[in-house]
């Protein structure tokens, strides 16, 4: 596993060494760019590009890309011609000697005879316009955020970026939900290839793994088309990593920051071992062999127990440290020539380290009090300190093969590690006394992907695309420790004498994904009609292994010993050759599982125009999925879950172009949502003491979702938008996490409800505020708001237990609001942005009679960002995050079940492009 990662890392870094400095011609420059269809936005191949007054010319290749080399420096005029399109002349291009200039050009289809158009070069590179264009021309409902927008926000990673998208909410700072639907209805892909979930119990991708410096764009697709995988309903988030620039460019960035609840404050810290700070921890955290290899089903001699205690790392207590400033740095190098060959490349790496806190970290279990109130049964309060490191690397190499083929190779690796210590104290009702507990954990997540993509243009009418991708995901939580002391009658704290007293857990998850995909598109009818048929196939295989052995460490020693720190209770002195006080027990119902998922799909999609105004996309996708999950508990119980379904997923999308600046869209589609593997494994996972046990359900079925969308869009100018949309979704057998009341403790499991519905309205506005007067020059305001309502229809058995049978779906927010204002000076070099984000109250777990639902309270989040030129090629950025220090709160009635404050952040960044 390590080796695989190492190779991925090496692959990422290799091109760095190979990057040469290209020799430049003194008196000439290069022009590169893309020729686009003005209406459809797609690249146009076979376009003639000629430099006026010279013999220099070329033909655009796949995707409309072209390169004009050896163009004489000075003012240049280009003439662009293609059959079926109006000829265009671009004047006033200023080309410096030895430089490369990027010039994109759009051509309008010539339905009737159009006269040639002449425009001046108006450089629009990587801008809002591009994102809105994508929104405007795509057949389905999409939202895109580009590198430039990301640059203006204080966002440090993809997850924060996505918070700005219409209807998107981000949970825990990393998990994305769209239109307030549960995270299970959102999928994520990287450069088109599915990203796997490294979280054991959730179908999510922690998008904070992707530093914003590596991002070209983040696109949120909200409507299914048959050429997309059918297992999303909220949104599919596609992260595009940066493409190479037109000429060699290097950039360095450095950011330092501080959090007002962290910097210089006393925080609990988990003792670190070698490797923690690079997210590749040392083997000292591995499960000791003597524990892993002992069969607990047979009699175990005391020496073996002593050996187990001696072999464990014996770190249980948190250190007190002082919060450090946050630091992150990155380098990226890109260009378009390697060894004189036309090969685009981008290599980028970043590293960040931050100290975080969950101050006033509270946890409570509720009980019903008088007059329907909720009173705490168990209540703990404390603090969590966390040191996170995150690094990533990306290599993207692309080359044209001939004029009609392009090959792109992308390798990425990202890794994060959180080292965390939580200490809390409080009252435990069952024990009828005060307890003090300490949890130390270290969590490492990594995703490494390699992706090869080929694009081939066959003449002017046919096009083939294929992708082969391999992804590797890991999540390890090696050697987590939990230790609980309880107060005895004389007020002294002693190690709790049960399986909850001292535990260690070794969690390990590995997942491998292979994917192959190909499609072929044939245009028919006139060139301007842009009618096409697209057919394709898709195969994906995922295998996962997850193992979570957990052991309790017990002692029979007297109160003189159990009052000591755990390091001494389980120290060498207690495990001497003649000692017979120690014992180690597996937590028998914890367990492991392995899963395999084979999904195959084929699709046919037809896109055609009805008259000039109406475009129709229709077709179907057949997806066959076979998921197998084998699970077993430490005690030896084994279960096998099999879920096999073939589903036909039809889609019909009708777009009407009301005018050049107005669109009206309708869509009706069918999609599917399959259970996460962990949810199919009937083994228990539970936090120590008081936590709810979560057990999978091997009887889960997949959910079918019918989606209906309608949307009106107005584009007053290239950078402005007003849109109003409505959507409705009907869920057949949606999966929900439910708490089950038992004669003992509550247990959580997953069940199919009977059905559910969700409908809502989306409003998006982005508008220059110039019209308000001179004072507002340079100001752009934007807002998107989604208001929705959902209803769950429970099956009779569930309805007996759940308090609230007429409620919204779990995880569904009633509204999401993102708004902000940006000011940019005339040169565009200085900008300031203020952002506000709030998500309506949503249910995180359905309450069991008589207790109310557990809900997450809205947080009012205000962020600010300032970009300014400093000197030379250095630009500065000043970012303020979470300026209101909004508290995370999960409430059950009036009781705060969970809550913490993360503090305000301020950071200063420098970016140097020599």
């Amino acid at each position, binding site marked *: 596993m390590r080796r695989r990662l190492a190779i991925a890392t090496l692959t990422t870094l290799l091109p760095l060494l190979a990057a040469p400095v290209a020799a430049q011609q003194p008196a000439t420059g290069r022009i590169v760019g893309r020729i686009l269809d003005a209406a459809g936005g797609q690249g146009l191949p076979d376009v003639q590009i000629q430099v006026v007054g010279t013999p220099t010319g070329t033909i655009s290749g796949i995707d409309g890309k072209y390169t004009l080399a050896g163009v004489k420096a000075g003012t240049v005029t280009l003439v662009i011609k293609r059959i079926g399109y109006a000829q265009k002349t671009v004047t006033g291009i200023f080309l410096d000697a030895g430089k490369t200039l990027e010039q994109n050009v759009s051509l309008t289809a010539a339905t009737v005879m159009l006269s040639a158009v002449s425009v001046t070069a108006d450089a629009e590179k990587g801008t809002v316009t591009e994102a809105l264009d994508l929104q405007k021309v795509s057949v389905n409902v999409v939202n895109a955020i580009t590198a430039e927008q990301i640059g203006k926000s204080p966002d440090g990673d993809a997850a924060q970026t996505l918070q700005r998208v219409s209807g998107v909410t981000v949970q825990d700072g990393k998990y994305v939900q769209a239109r307030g639907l549960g995270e299970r209805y959102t999928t994520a892909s990287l450069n088109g290839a599915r990203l796997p979930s490294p979280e054991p119990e959730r179908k999510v991708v922690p998008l904070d793994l992707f530093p914003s410096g590596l991002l070209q764009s983040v696109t949120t697709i909200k409507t299914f088309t048959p050429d997309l995988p059918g297992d999303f309903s909220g949104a599919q988030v596609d992260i595009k990593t940066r493409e190479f620039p037109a000429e060699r460019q290097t950039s360095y960035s450095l950011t330092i920051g501080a959090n007002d609840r962290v910097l210089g404050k006393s925080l609990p810290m988990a003792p670190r071992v070698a490797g923690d700070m690079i997210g590749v921890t040392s083997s000292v955290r591995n499960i000791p062999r003597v524990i892993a290899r002992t069969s607990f089903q047979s009699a175990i001699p005391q020496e073996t127990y002593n050996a187990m205690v001696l072999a464990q790392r014996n770190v249980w207590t948190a250190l007190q440290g002082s919060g450090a400033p946050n630091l992150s740095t990155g380098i990226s190098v890109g260009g378009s020539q390697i060894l004189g060959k036309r090969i685009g490349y981008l290599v980028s790496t970043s590293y960040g380290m931050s100290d975080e806190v969950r101050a006033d970290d509270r946890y409570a279990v509720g009980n*019903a009090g008088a007059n329907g109130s909720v009173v705490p049964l168990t209540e703990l309060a404390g603090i969590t300190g966390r040191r996170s490191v995150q690094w990533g690397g990306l290599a993207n190499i692309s080359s044209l093969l001939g004029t009609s083929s392009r090959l792109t190779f992308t390798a990425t690796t990202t890794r994060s590690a959180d080292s965390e210590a939580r200490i809390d104290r409080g009252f435990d009702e069952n024990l009828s006394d005060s307890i003090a507990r300490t949890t130390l954990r270290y969590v490492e997540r990594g995703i490494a992907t390699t992706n090869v993509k080929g694009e081939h243009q066959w003449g002017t009418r046919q096009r083939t695309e294929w992708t082969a991708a391999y992804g590797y995901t890991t999540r390890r939580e090696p050697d987590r420790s939990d230790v609980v002391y309880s107060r005895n009658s004389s007020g002294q704290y002693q190690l709790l*004498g049960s399986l909850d007293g001292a535990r260690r857990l070794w969690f390990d998850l590995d997942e491998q994904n292979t994917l192959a995909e190909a499609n072929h598109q044939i245009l028919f009818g006139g060139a301007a009609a842009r009618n096409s048929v697209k057919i394709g196939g898709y195969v994906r295989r995922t295998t996962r292994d997850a193992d979570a052995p957990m052991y309790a460490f017990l002692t029979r020693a*007297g109160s003189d010993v159990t009052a000591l720190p755990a390091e001494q209770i389980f120290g060498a002195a207690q495990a001497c050759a003649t000692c017979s006080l120690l*014992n180690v027990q597996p937590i028998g*119902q914890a367990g492991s599982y392995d899963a395999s998922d084979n999904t195959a799909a084929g699709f046919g999609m037809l896109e055609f125009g009805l008259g000039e105004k109406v475009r129709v996309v229709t077709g179907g996708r057949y997806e066959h999925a076979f998921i197998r999950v084998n699970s077993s*508990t430490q005690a030896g119980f084994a279960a096998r879950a099999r879920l096999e379904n073939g589903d036909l997923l039809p889609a019909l999308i009708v777009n009407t172009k009301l005018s050049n600046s107005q669109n009206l869209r309708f869509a009706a589609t069918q999609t599917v949502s399959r259970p996460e593997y962990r949810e199919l494994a009937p083994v228990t996972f539970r936090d120590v003491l008081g936590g709810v046990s979560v057990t999978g359900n091997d009887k889960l079925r997949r959910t079918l979702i019918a989606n209906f969308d309608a949307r009106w869009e107005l584009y007053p100018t290239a950078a402005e938008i007003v849109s109003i949309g409505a959507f409705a979704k009907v869920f057949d057998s949606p999966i929900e996490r439910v708490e089950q*009341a*038992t*004669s003992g403790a509550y247990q959580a499991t997953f069940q199919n409800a009977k059905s559910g519905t969700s409908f809502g309205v989306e409003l998006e506005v982005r508008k220059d505020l110039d019209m308000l007067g001179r004072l507002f020059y340079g100001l752009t305001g934007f807002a998107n708001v989604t208001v929705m309502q959902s209803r769950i229809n429970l099956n009779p058995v569930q309805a007996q237990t759940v308090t609230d049978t007429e409620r919204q779906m779990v995880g569904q927010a009633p509204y999401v609001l993102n708004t902000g204002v940006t000011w940019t000076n005339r040169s565009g070099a200085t900008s300031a942005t203020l952002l506000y984000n709030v998500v309506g109250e949503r249910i995180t777990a359905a309450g069991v009679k*008589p207790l109310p639902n557990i809900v997450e309270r809205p947080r009012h989040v205000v962020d600010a960002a300032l970009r300014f030129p400093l000197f030379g090629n250095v630009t500065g950025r000043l970012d303020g995050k979470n300026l209101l220090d909004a508290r995370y709160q999960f409430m059950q009635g009036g009781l705060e079940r969970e809550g913490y404050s993360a503090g305000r952040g301020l950071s200063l960044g420098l970016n140097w492009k020599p």
Partner: protein
Amino acid sequence: MSHSSPRRRLLATALLTVLAACSTTDDNDLITGPGGGIPSGTAVLTGSITANRTLAAETTYVLRGFVYVQNGATLTIRPGTKIVGDTTALGSALFIMRGAKIDAQGTATAPIVFTSQRAPGNRAPGDWGGLIIVGNARNNRSGGIIVEGSNGSVLGADPAGVVYTGGSNDADNSGTLRYVRVEFAGYATLTDAELNSFTFAAVGSGTTFEFLQSVAGLDDSYEWFGGTVDGRFLVSYEAGDDHFDASEGYRGRNQFLIAMQSTYLTPRAGAGAVSSDPQGFEVDGCGGGGCTAPAGGNAQSSGAADGLWNMNMFANFTIIGVGGGAVVPAQGGVGMVLRRGTGGHYINGVIARWPRQAISLRDSTSNNRFQADSLIVRNLFVAEGGTLTSGVVFDATGTNFGQEAAFAARNSAITVANATTAASLFTAYPTSITAATQVSAFDWTPVGTAAIATGGLSTFAADPRIAARAGTFITPTAYRGAAAPGGTKWWAGWTNYARN
């Protein structure tokens, strides 16, 4: 002392039992070898039993996974029959579902035994699940609550669990258990969700429970969740959690109970854990967090409006803890914990050797019951109390509500005799108890001179509340504890004291 005639017949039966005891063969002989290979003469019980079925003593029955006797079916078990929990299908358990009946009537010479499939000497708590009876009586929780662990990771388990709430007939009849032992049960089918040896969920008063024993279970020996069933002659040896646990509006009555804890056993590895708060009695008004609060009331007053207080009656109990300086789980070792708004009557008992304290009245809602006389504690005897805590018997001043003065104010008549040893109270009580200790080493009959031979509440006439609740089922006695001086040794012959 006045006995009703059915009771007299029972005593006669018990007497015969004692006489026959010497000829009882060791019923463990049928099992061969460690690891529990199935010997000849065995049959496997698995899945659902939907029609009447009879189990006979000639066969050893192996419970494989969760076995459900479904609504309408009666499972008859002949005297002397042995049923073992499969060691390969961990957590195997027998569920008598609502509407089904069990008719398990052993005899003192041929008790019916539910036990581990492993050979004697190699058995441990948690070797299998337990016996669960779900009746149709009422309890004080609303909604579809399931029996803890009934949705567990066990072969054949219905993942939806077994719902026991929503019953409507307090006079419901789930059948008869007589001379039945449940041994080495208590497997945790989910993390920290151990099954009890005997789970009586919403069992109605038409049901008969007499002469039952739990041995070395990993969770509670007996747990009642609501319901109205009465019982007598109940024995509990070595529990992983509580010996007698009642909650959720249990309104049944029980007389003549013995609980004996001499050590905390090590469970079968992976089967679960000994509780951190094992007690003698643990009586709750309602389960943790799950009671319905009547308008304006407190959840722990649950059931008041419907007469569904937790109002059990326990009379003539002898409960013995580990005593001495033994290591006791963090919050365990209390003879009697009354909490979460329970009521009930606790009369004529002996509480000895509970190392942390003898009796605790936990919260204000229970205290409200106590002050209002719906929680009545009368005529108890405490010996060797608080051996870990320098003699703590009651709740300390300033903690909880069960101070000595509080009990005195309610005329509880609790005799505290910390200097008196348990051994001095009973006719036979071994000085050291080991795995080899035989059941014959115990004779719970009070020695003639012991304080417990007298001091009982010998008439209920003075307190109409007690009299009304006791009815004819609970007999007042002049003695305290589970055995009458010179009376029948009702535990002899059919109980067992094998800890492994």
